[in-house]
């Protein structure tokens, strides 16, 4: 058994439009590492690393975060269509003004005393996850003149094998800043839509929060699930 090669989904580390890659991408070709037991196993972190309430980023320091309240939900699947159950998701993001709670973030948007900007949850038996947060703001950076990062949420996932490890960013539909963002555009064009969440009116809660759906697909083994398993919706 081995996991499929999905390199066509991913950006090249040598992506000069994103200037920070300049001194950080390897210059030698990657060497082929056949998948053996160390790579076919992996840490199976799930609900054991999550404390109650960590899936709600809007409640912090006895108060409520400022901004557009949103629900971000979806499923974690493998590329064969199987759900990935009980797997840890860790997320972090800027606040509604585009400011991170980090000493190195100098963007002069106000910090929000009621928003720390990190969350955790684990998927259920069907691979479903759900966070409540506020929509992050766009923010400027120094990559090029008048450079602005589109609004995004950072996500980290383990899956069930070392080779399924994924760190990515989720974006919002129809963001006008995509055209000039070298991080989003580092991804092969055909794969870029897979970084963008969809507005989900069924997940939107009346007088409470807007819903966004973001399904996350990790590498599978290329083996078709058994017929008796339910199809994903």
């Amino acid at each position, binding site marked *: 058994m081995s996991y499929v090669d999905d390199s066509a989904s991913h950006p090249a580390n040598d992506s000069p439009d994103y200037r920070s890659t300049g*001194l*950080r*991408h390897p210059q*030698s070709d990657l060497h082929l590492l056949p998948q053996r037991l*160390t790579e076919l196993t992996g*840490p199976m972190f799930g609900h054991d690393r999550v404390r109650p309430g960590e899936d709600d980023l809007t409640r912090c320091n006895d108060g409520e975060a400022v901004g557009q309240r949103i629900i971000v939900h979806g499923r974690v699947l493998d590329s064969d269509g199987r759900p990935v159950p009980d797997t840890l998701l860790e997320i972090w993001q800027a606040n509604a003004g585009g400011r991170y709670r*980090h000493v190195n973030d100098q963007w002069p948007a106000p910090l929000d005393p009621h928003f720390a900007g990190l969350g955790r949850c684990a998927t259920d038996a069907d691979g479903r996850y759900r966070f409540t947060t506020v929509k992050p703001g766009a923010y400027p950076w120094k990559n090029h003149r008048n450079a602005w990062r589109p609004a995004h949420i950072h996500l980290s996932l383990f899956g069930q094998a070392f080779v399924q490890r994924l760190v990515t*960013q989720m974006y919002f539909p129809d963001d006008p800043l995509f055209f000039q963002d070298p991080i*989003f555009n580092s991804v092969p064009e055909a794969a870029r839509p897979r970084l963008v969440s969809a507005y989900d009116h069924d997940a939107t809660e009346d007088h409470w929060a807007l819903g966004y759906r973001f399904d996350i697909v990790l590498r599978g083994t290329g083996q078709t699930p058994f017929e008796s398993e339910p199809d994903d919706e």
Partner: protein
Amino acid sequence: MSEPATTPSQTIGPFLSIALPWHDGPELVTSGGLTIVGTLTDGAGAPVPDGLVEIWQADPDGHFPHPADPHRADYAGLRPFGRCPSDADGAFRFRTVKPGRVDTEQAPHIDVVVFARGLLKHLVTRLYFPDEATANAADPVLQSLPADARDRLVAVDDADVLRFDIRLQGDGETPFFAV
């Protein structure tokens, strides 16, 4: 049903320390064990102060607590995964135990993952042990590399610790793998 294509990787960015450091991240064992230290540097030789290094390894019996391993991993007191952000000097550190041999071909090894601002997809490398010259000489992964690259995957005895520096680019660049 068509197969869904995988979600693309994106950089971990400069603000990973908001969420990802764990208080117990660098400690794979609660007592004893060996210490692994290293420095993450870029193509100019400058420290990378905003990276994240993760490791995954077998227990001293060569087993993993995972359903893909036919053996039962019953070595107590080891969480075989570690995570350490690099500090202002690019330094990282783990405390663990030496893994056993996973199979009859491979020398004892630790899989190492590097994330950083400026890396759009994480890098994968391997750490081998300096006291395993015979096993290293027969290891199929090491032997698939050019000789100079091979040496860079073997940690160095440095007083009481093992040193495994990671150079992202340029002279002495660490060999990285497509897995």
